[in-house]
């Protein structure tokens, strides 16, 4: 709910290929399970926002984390997806991403 705060240079820029970490930590995670371990392309950098994984437990979520819109080919995400060219877009925090 907090507004975007800019505190640092984002690690990724639109067009960068990124790999979503596969991890199953306990707690409230905004990175959908189906997208973990997949590779996509950064579409947009939204700004920095308090970390929801900490806000979920009443903490302040600081420092804010860079948030990106990442696009994935549906065929890279779902086996036997029927339509070529379809994409799925997911908002993902920087600490879930690594260079692909």
């Amino acid at each position, binding site marked *: 709910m907090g507004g975007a705060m800019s505190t640092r240079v984002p690690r990724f820029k639109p067009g960068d290929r990124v790999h979503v970490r596969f991890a199953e930590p306990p707690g*409230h995670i905004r990175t959908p399970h189906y997208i973990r371990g997949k590779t996509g392309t950064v579409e947009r950098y939204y700004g920095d926002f308090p970390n929801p994984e900490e806000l*979920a*437990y009443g903490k302040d979520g600081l420092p804010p984390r860079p948030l990106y819109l990442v696009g994935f080919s549906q065929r890279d995400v779902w086996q036997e997806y029927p339509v070529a060219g379809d994409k799925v877009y997911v908002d993902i925090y920087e600490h879930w991403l690594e260079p692909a």
Partner: protein
Amino acid sequence: MGPIDRTPHDLSDWEILTDAISTAIGRKGIRTTDEHRRAREDMDPALYPALGYYERWVVGNEAILCEKGYLTREEIDRKMAELEERWGEP
């Protein structure tokens, strides 16, 4: 799971009230949206698929309000028993 019923339907009064209460406790700073989501995710996995959308919100709100000391489980159960007696249904 079967086909999805896409027919629009009106919200029941209790659903509208649940949304209003949820918004109010958010605006009053009692909990963040992320805490609200976390409380629903913490639900018994056997209970989660048995409940509708706003029923899950009710369970989440109860959990948060008890966790933060605004209500106790006993107070909620006592009020429920009182309402069941007055209205004749659970």
